[in-house]
């Protein structure tokens, strides 16, 4: 038989379903449940990956298209259709690839729950989440899209509150679901506006809309833009709609938080891409400006807050905000170029955004898996308790380091490539318009530079404090390398990082049908030089880079130090000795630099933003210089939470309590309500 993407896709979906059912079926015997559900998940994800790659490789605009006849069409507008156009295929690839790595990883990670929690339920919800997410990016019909979108949110909620015994987990879960549902409300309204204009729910109709002049002129188009931006923005975690993200990601089981940070928020990006570049038609200038601004703000604030965290997973969560910002910078620039009529640049910027999307999915997934491994080994997320893990768990340390280098946008790995593309589009964009707006591009570039430099600082801290130096606690000292499946899961993503980093030009070809669909251009040839070894800007003079070349030459240059060593220092020996301790009785872990200490200079520099508070209590016997005990407490204010969300919540609750006075319990009052209603109606309705 021939393997068509469609068959594989169906296989994948069935696989997820089977995995979920298996999880429920065997929820009494955890080993079996673990094996079956996550095993099915792994295989299904593999099928999905292959299917998406195949359909992207063939490059047709719509490869697979399924009709699921769940409900008869007697319910108006309900129809369930899946189609695999290049955009869906691209995001489907992202989803399936991550799902593959994560399911593999989960096989090992879930063992941590044996005896504590029901692994079968975990597997079931996990597969449900995978299924829903896959369907979200492939839905071809807004009704179906909204449906699977909600199922996705629901299963994610169940997974976030999987360890619901902890109160903070419950709160985080509720916060996530509430915000996500508000987002869904916005998205629903947006789609309803489109529906109002077309009279149908299928995406093809919406796309056709983007050609209609009367629609382009209508105000509801702008309304739809804002609604979608807010709705999908909440899911993607843009500032200031991000508060759920650092709350929910840390408390979830690590394989789930990896999925949420790597994939779930990308569904928001998918929605934005689908809507902005496929439905809404040529954008007015202010759309691009808005998106670019939001992107820049999210990037900078995200990384700044990340620096202040010492909970490893929380830190990573904030970095997701940062990277979403970077993606949106690309999108915003692209929208602006579309407005000023530079499709080529628009395509470049769009590619930059999409490339960063998949990159972030890969390395953020990797980092969360690493964090999960650390959690698995040390049972803590607090970096101040870690240290020295590079010796106990070298493989994990290596994987994490790769991820750290990649996310800090350092050559030759993938983060660098996509940020390079972003820089290129921003710089080329300067010439695209004469208005003052063009200053946004270089300023944005500079802030992007700030962002990536801060990210580098943050990951020096994350990796250095977690994996290097002496263990800061007993568990960290007792830590052990994680089981093979978990390492394999990370390995897959490491490989992806390296491939995306070293062979960008090969990957860009895959994007051609996608850009063809969205902006009508295929520019991978223009971006490719020296038969694929070199990546170039839209015009070669604009600048070129070759991560592969850098890597190769770097290895080659290793010859130099070795030569020097051979010539001058063969006879030298290497001794292991104590670290210089200023003549004290040896260094203890308590003398090491802490995570908090590491980020202190930044905290001081940006104190206007962080408003740091510190409480120091020192108790001493005779002189303050010989304190017997010192208690130090430092807090950083999270502005949006304390200034916007909390007051809002308090306000709503207070008003609701006021309302309760209406139901005061007195029959007379109730009668009076009815009486007054009656009188009013008699007076006015007649």
């Amino acid at each position, binding site marked *: 038989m021939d393997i068509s993407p469609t068959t594989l896709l169906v296989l994948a979906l069935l696989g997820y379903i089977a995995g979920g059912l298996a999880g429920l079926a065997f929820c009494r015997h955890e080993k079996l449940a673990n094996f079956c559900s996550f095993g099915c998940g792994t295989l299904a994800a593999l099928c999905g990956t292959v299917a998406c790659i195949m359909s992207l490789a063939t490059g047709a605009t719509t490869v697979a298209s399924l009709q699921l006849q769940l409900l008869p069409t007697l319910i108006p507008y309900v129809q369930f259709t899946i189609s695999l156009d290049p955009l869906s295929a691209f995001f489907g690839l992202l989803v399936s690839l991550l799902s593959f790595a994560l399911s593999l990883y989960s096989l090992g990670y879930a063992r941590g729950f044996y005896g504590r929690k029901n692994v079968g339920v975990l597997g079931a919800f996990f597969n449900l989440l995978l299924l829903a997410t896959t369907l979200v990016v492939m839905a071809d019909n807004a009704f179906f899209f909204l449906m699977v979108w909600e199922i996705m949110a629901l299963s994610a909620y169940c997974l976030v509150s999987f360890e619901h015994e902890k109160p903070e987990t419950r709160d985080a879960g509720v916060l996530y679901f509430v915000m996500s549902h508000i987002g869904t409300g916005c998205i629903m309204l947006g789609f309803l506006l489109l529906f109002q204009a077309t009279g149908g729910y299928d995406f093809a109709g919406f796309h056709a809309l983007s050609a209609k002049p009367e629609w382009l002129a209508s105000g509801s188009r702008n309304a739809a833009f804002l609604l979608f931006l807010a709705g999908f923005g909440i899911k993607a975690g843009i500032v200031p709609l991000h508060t759920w993200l650092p709350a929910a990601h840390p408390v979830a089981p690590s394989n789930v938080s990896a999925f949420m940070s790597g994939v779930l928020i990308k569904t928001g990006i998918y929605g934005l891409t689908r809507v902005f570049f496929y439905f809404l038609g040529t954008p007015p200038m202010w759309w691009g400006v808005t998106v670019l601004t939001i992107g820049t703000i999210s990037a900078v604030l995200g990384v700044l807050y990340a620096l202040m965290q010492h909970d490893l997973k929380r830190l990573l969560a904030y970095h997701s905000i940062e990277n979403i910002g970077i993606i949106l910078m690309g999108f915003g620039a692209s929208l602006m170029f579309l407005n000023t009529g530079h499709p080529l640049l628009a395509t470049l910027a769009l590619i930059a955004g999409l490339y960063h999307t998949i990159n972030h999915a890969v390395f953020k997934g990797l980092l969360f898996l690493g964090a999960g491994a650390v959690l698995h080994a040390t049972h803590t997320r607090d970096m101040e308790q870690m240290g020295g893990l590079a010796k106990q768990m070298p493989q994990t340390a290596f994987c994490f380091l790769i991820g750290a280098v990649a996310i800090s946008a350092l050559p030759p790995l993938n983060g660098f490539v996509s940020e390079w593309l972003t820089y290129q589009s921003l710089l080329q964009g300067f010439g695209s318009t004469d208005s003052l707006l063009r200053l946004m591009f270089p300023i944005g570039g500079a802030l992007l530079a700030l962002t990536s430099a801060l990210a580098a600082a943050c990951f020096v801290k994350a990796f250095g404090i977690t994996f290097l130096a002496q263990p800061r606690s007993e568990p960290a000292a007792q830590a052990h390398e994680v089981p093979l499946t978990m390492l394999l899961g990370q390995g897959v993503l490491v490989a992806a990082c390296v491939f995306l980093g070293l062979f960008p030009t090969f990957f860009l070809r895959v994007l051609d049908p996608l850009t063809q669909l969205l902006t009508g251009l295929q520019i991978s040839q223009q971006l490719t030089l020296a038969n694929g070894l070199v990546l170039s800007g839209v015009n070669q003079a604009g600048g070129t880079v070759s991560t592969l070349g850098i890597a190769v030459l770097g290895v080659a240059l290793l010859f130099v130090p070795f030569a020097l060593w051979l010539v001058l220092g063969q006879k030298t020996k290497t001794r292991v000795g104590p670290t210089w301790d200023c003549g004290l009785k040896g260094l203890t872990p308590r003398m090491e630099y802490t995570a908090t200490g590491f980020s202190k200079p930044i905290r001081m520099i940006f104190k206007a933003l962080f408003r740091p508070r510190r409480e120091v209590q020192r108790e001493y016997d005779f002189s303050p210089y010989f304190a017997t005990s010192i208690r130090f407490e430092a807090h950083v204010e999270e502005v949006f939470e304390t200034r916007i969300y909390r007051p809002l919540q308090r306000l709503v609750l207070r008003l609701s309590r006021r309302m309760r006075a209406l139901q005061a*319990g*007195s029959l*007379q009052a109730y009668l009076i309500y009815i009486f007054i209603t*009656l009188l009013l109606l008699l*007076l006015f309705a*007649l």
Partner: protein
Amino acid sequence: MNPAVSTPIPTEIGSQIIMLLAALMLVLQLLLVVQRMLLTNIRLFALQSLMLSAIATVVAYYYNATHVYIVAGLTLVGKVIFLPWLLNRLVRRINIVQEIEPLFNAPTSMLICGGLTLLGYLVARPFTTLHKLGNNTLAIAITLLLTGFFLMINRRKAISQVLALLTIENGVMLAAVALTTYGMPLVVELGIFFDVMVAVMVLGILVYRIRESFASMDTGKLDQLKG
């Protein structure tokens, strides 16, 4: 319009009689509002019901419609004799004499009732043109309804609230009899009648239970369920 069959007494007079009786019902209603003694209230209610059945008789006479006679009879038996008797027993059984302070004092209630009457006529004005026997009883019916409603709000004792409900019922029946020629279909009339009976019984049961578990008839005490 002119009645179905010609009768010795001309229609106008019948119309006058009906209006008169209806007005009397209204007056009784107002008395009910100001009167606090429960037993007196019950008697007033009985009297009102009597007026009602009288009206029914007149209507029946003019259209010599048998089933309206039946209605008149039922009203007489039920509302004039049986219910008052039942309520009397209730009041004696749980010996409470009078309504302690209603929500509004007498003058205020009178003012309010005046306003309500005005409203009733206001609402009913467009329909007084219907050339029909007892055409503008609608105004009185509405007024009875509203004042009964107000009475219900104004009183605290369970019994007097039941009474108020019954006066509302009277207003409705007035409309049913006088406004709609020939009254409603018999089956409906019967249904309504028995419903009212059963309702009063159920209310009686409840009043007993409340009485024995609250040791009071004051529905003002029933305010535990909030929010």
